[in-house]
């Protein structure tokens, strides 16, 4: 249920910022955070990513399957790398770094897929990544607050 909220949040953000910057993929970030941290059955996250991506494509991108594919790739990449990380290094900071990294990769792949160049596109992409960084920062602060309390 929480992922519906994140998807809708991303949708509302897209309404607000489209045309100016690319919207940060907060829905994807929520899934990426959940993968190592929550006790979900991981296959469920893949289905959520798939349907969320399809729905996003139907609403915004116009290329059915693209966002779903990118989200799935990001989740599978996250899973693969997380499995390779030694247990001693598996911490929240690592999760934050990986989430930010995959968010960047998905944004970049989408940008490459749709093509285009120029300063405006760069600004839109930079805006998206800054938004992603802000989400990561908020997650860090939330986690810290929770740990302290």
């Amino acid at each position, binding site marked *: 249920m929480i992922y519906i909220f994140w998807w809708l949040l991303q949708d*509302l953000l897209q309404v607000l910022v489209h045309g100016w910057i690319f919207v940060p993929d907060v829905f994807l970030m929520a899934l990426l955070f959940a993968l190592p941290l929550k006790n979900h059955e991981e296959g469920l996250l*893949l289905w959520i990513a*798939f349907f969320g991506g399809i729905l996003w494509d139907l609403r915004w991108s116009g290329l059915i399957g693209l966002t*779903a*594919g990118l989200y799935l790739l990001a989740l599978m990449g996250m899973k693969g790398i997380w499995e390779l990380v030694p247990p001693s290094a598996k911490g929240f900071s690592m999760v934050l770094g990986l989430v930010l990294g995959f968010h960047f990769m998905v944004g970049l792949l989408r940008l490459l897929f749709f093509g285009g160049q120029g300063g405006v596109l760069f600004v839109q992409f930079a805006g998206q990544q800054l938004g992603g960084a802000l989400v990561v920062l908020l997650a860090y602060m939330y986690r810290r607050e929770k740990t302290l309390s």
Partner: protein
Amino acid sequence: MSAFKVTSEERRFWICGLILLAVALSLVAATGGNVSVLAEGYNHVGRILFSVEYPAWALRDGALRLVSWTIGQGKLESQLKELQRENLALRLQLGLREERALLREGGGEARIVARYPGEWWRFVVIDKGLTDGVVRGMPALQNGRFLTGRVRDVEPDSSVIELISSSTMLVPVVVDDTRDIGIIRGDDTGGVWLLYIPMERKLEAGMTVSTAMAGEALPPGIPVGRIGEPGSVVEGYVSYRLYPYADLSQLRSVALVNSTP
């Protein structure tokens, strides 16, 4: 080595992931961005989400309107100033036309009948006088538009016009662009000067000058000429050369403006 052990749950994850990925890529390949294939689907999703997205759309529209209003406000202000200037200019011209209408009742265009070489840049004599309604102080215009001089002496059938190039002719004027007020005076040799402009006021060549409302019988807004190069500075006041619109060396007739109401 335990890191490379794959549990059945993990195997399911990878198989599920690969299958879903294959489905997603197949969808990309199948539709290929052809919107018409799934047009109904797009519309359906759009309709369902519209009510959820409505507050965000309203917020976005509001923000855009606010930005556009703020930008538009600046434009409107400059347009208003421009219209005010235009309005002033039109009112002045309208006033001038009314004055000319009054003049036509009294006398109309007057021919120059004498111009003495010794007073070439100071006086001309016209063929209209008291009987035509000419009174002392009336402004004389070239082509019905440009200030040329004022009536100095009136006889029954003729009058003497003192030209703006005369050194005893003082006319209050205003610089149209800056609204600076000064006096114009001739130098008896064909030149006209704008006097009493404070030093700190920087007037530029080409600025236009017209008669000022100074409580006299001279109507305001009559075009006089353009500012030229600055001249001498006396006691903190600069004089500027003024190039009259009226061609004082080619005067054949003048129109007299009856400025009394």
